[in-house]
């Protein structure tokens, strides 16, 4: 049906009139709600998509000494998978990341359970205390941790791994507590009571009701710890006195020595690892969580 035709129906006329007006307006600038997205689109493109693209390009690029791309090269790829040193560093990073995640969960889980109980945590002051270190600059905090540990006799010289793990757990514990706490606070108390009434002992209540309900919290807590630990290097550098080298250090080393292809390739490896973690954990989270009540 052609829109130019006059219709006897007054309602149709009104619609056509409105459309006309809208069309006139669009000759200048018709504001639409979706234009509000433009700043975000620009941000996304500039700071996320373009950098990733650059990493991708440089990872497989051959560069001359001024950093200009002159061709394709798989050298970075080969040098990564043939270098036992680089693979060793990756293993150590994965180990530190996983261990840190587990320790943080082991400490954070019971802690958040108790904190979510009003009996122990009136006014949520305690939660605040546990989360407070996050307010202080991360580098300063690590420097202070080094001083405290040195005072206690634990230092990178004699206990490089211990010092690093303490620093890691201290730094990432708040990130575990927050999501777990928000999940715990929303635990369906009626379900717990029902489980107990139906004859489950406390252990049964925990495994059959509390744990399944808190899986989304655990998943986001694990994500929040594992991913940044994998790429962190300030903590290990400061607390192990440079004796433990994580994946982040070695990436930095290659960039600072103008080995952009190798640095980019390792950054890409890290990106892929993080992506895998995301996919796996989301699969886990979705299977069990019917409600998206995690904070992160």
């Amino acid at each position, binding site marked *: 049906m052609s829109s130019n035709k006059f219709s006897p129906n007054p309602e149709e006329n009104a619609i056509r009139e409105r459309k006309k007006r809208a069309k006139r307006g669009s000759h200048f600038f018709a504001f639409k709600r979706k234009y509000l997205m433009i700043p975000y689109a620009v941000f996304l493109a500039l700071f996320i998509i373009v950098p990733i693209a650059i990493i991708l390009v440089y990872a497989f690029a051959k560069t001359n000494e001024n*950093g200009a791309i002159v061709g394709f090269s798989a050298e970075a790829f080969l040098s990564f998978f043939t270098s036992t040193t680089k693979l060793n560093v990756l293993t150590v990073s994965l180990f530190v990341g996983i261990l840190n995640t587990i320790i943080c969960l082991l400490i954070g889980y019971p802690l958040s359970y108790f904190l979510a109980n009003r009996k122990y945590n009136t006014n949520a002051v305690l939660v605040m205390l546990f989360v407070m270190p996050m307010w202080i600059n991360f580098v300063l905090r690590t420097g202070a941790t080094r001083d405290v540990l040195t005072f206690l006799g634990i230092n990178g010289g004699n206990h490089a791994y211990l010092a690093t793990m303490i620093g890691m757990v201290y730094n990432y514990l708040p990130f575990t507590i927050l999501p777990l706490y928000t999940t715990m606070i929303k635990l369906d108390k009626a379900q717990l009571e029902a489980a107990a009434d139906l004859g489950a002992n406390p252990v049964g209540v925990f495994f059959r009701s509390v744990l399944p309900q808190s899986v989304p919290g655990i998943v986001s807590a694990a994500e929040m710890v594992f991913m940044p630990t994998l790429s962190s290097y300030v903590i290990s550098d400061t607390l192990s006195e440079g004796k433990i080298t994580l994946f982040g250090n070695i990436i930095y080393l*290659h960039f*600072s020595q103008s080995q952009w292809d190798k640095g980019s390739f390792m950054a890409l490896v890290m990106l892929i690892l993080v992506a895998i973690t995301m996919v796996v954990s989301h699969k886990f989270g979705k299977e069990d969580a019917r409600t998206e009540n995690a904070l992160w």
Partner: protein
Amino acid sequence: MKNSKFVALGALALLTLPALTGCASNNNVRTLRILNCEDYIADDIVENFTKDWNESHPGEKISVVYDTFDTNETMLSSLKTGKSSYDLICPSDYAIQKMMRDGMLQPFDDIPDDNYNTYASKYLVSRLDSIESEIGDGTGVKHKVSEYARGYMWGTLGVVYNPAKIADITGLEEDEIKVDMNSWTSLWDAKYHNIMSIKDSMRDTYSVGIMKAYNDEIIADMDASGVFDENYNLLDTVEFDSEEALAYNEKLTKIFNRCGYEETKVVEKELLSLKANVFGFEVDSGKDDMVKGIVGMNLAWSGDAVYSLDRGENENDTYLYYSIPETGGNIWFDGWVMPKGADKELAQDFIDYISSPEIAAENMDFIGYTSFIAGDTVLDLVRQWYDPRSYAMYVWHDASKDSGCTWEDSDFVYDEDDELVYQDGTGLHEDTGDDYGPFDMTGSTYEEAVVDGVAMSWEDYQAMVDTYNEAEFGDDEDSYLSSGWDTVNLTYIFSGTIDDYDESTFGDTPDDNPYLFYTDALETITTEDGREVVAGRQFFTQYAPQEMLPKLAIMADYGENNVYVLNLWENVKANNLPIWGVIIFGIILLSAIVVTLSTIIIRRKQKKLRVERRKITAANMRK
């Protein structure tokens, strides 16, 4: 729809454009862009230069943009990636070579009578002359670094150590420690396990590895050269710049610059065992760790050593020492370079300004590193710092020339460090309490000295002080030395930079040669096997002893071989998962697999049950 998006983006770009171009539109103001290392210039120098320049060039105006970088490597990669352009940059020797090779630099004009050519230490310039590089023009012709760079600061790499602290931990005698610190191999010694921090910097730590790996070869070369005595000190009869000495230096420099594949493998082994012996790697925390006593030894650049030694003494009563081991080590330079496209005139004006001895001394006093510039003011500063003879009067006398104040006008006060200082029109001047000797100087002015009420010329005053010193310490050099004073020779730095001096009249004691210094900061220790070892503090950090110079080598840019050294460094820094780690990792992975599998199996079972139950229910329903 697509179009409107582009319009919006275009509008955004248009909005930001004027903001970007706005600063460049004002043509009356020229800009000098300086890129320097962090904390590497006295506070007000840049500001004063701008003021001076604007006053001396009426009708023109400049402004200075001053930025900093933290390491040469980050500076190089930011220059390569970014579009930022600077007129003056201050990298280290090897980075200058690299920039020359990449064709990034333009040469300085050679102006014979500018401050740099007049006052820069002749010796240091000759060292700078000795390194060269291609300039990226494709011809492969090598050019001298000194054409493309103007020296700024220089120094050495050595070991700062705290004998008292180490003695405390290890139970060794302090003298033994001081003797040990005269050798690079001591860093590998299990006696000093877990006491020392080394640099988390590829080149510096690599240079130490070289000195250890080729220690025997270096010692054999020293023996063969015939210019060193049995203590590996330069023979008294051999000048530091004699041909034999230079020939030895060339030999050492070759060893020092080894960086081929085979050689890096040798050094790698050494550095791995060094890593096992040290407390840790550090970049910047080492200075404070030394002062606080967290570590007992630290591989340090001489300028950082000055900072540690000063702070240790002033704040913690910790007496730190600095040693350049007897087989020698690294001598390094930082210098100013002009990238292509720089405002040459302004850049050279700035170099001229900071190369005047007054500014150089101010700079040196502020940042603690040793200036490339010699000249009278720097000499005065060094004398004021280190000569134990009475130079309080000297400083006061010098200051009163500008301020015109008399002795009574000067106000003696204690500063926050409880050190006696005096105040006059020119500000605070440091001094130590007992330096005025036994004399009452009331009534003294710049023109004449009044000593105990008797007016005399300053020359007579100086003679009087000398007499006093002779009476106190004896009249010959030996008794100066016997009272714990050594003579340090700085001729190599200052020679030829001070016009007022006629060097042919100089004698060979500090009394008649201003380039020689008495110092009470050296200790001579005789070892059990009869060798004499000198342990030094501040003096060695500022100026390497003259007899040490043939043993100091410049470490050039590795060039193509950088990949080998990088590979070595990666291997040194990386570590395997320890055995307990492997076990824990294994357990974690195993239990993860078990949990996942069991969850899947349990779910399947439950599902089966559910299906069966539903079947039963359905069957029941049907019934």
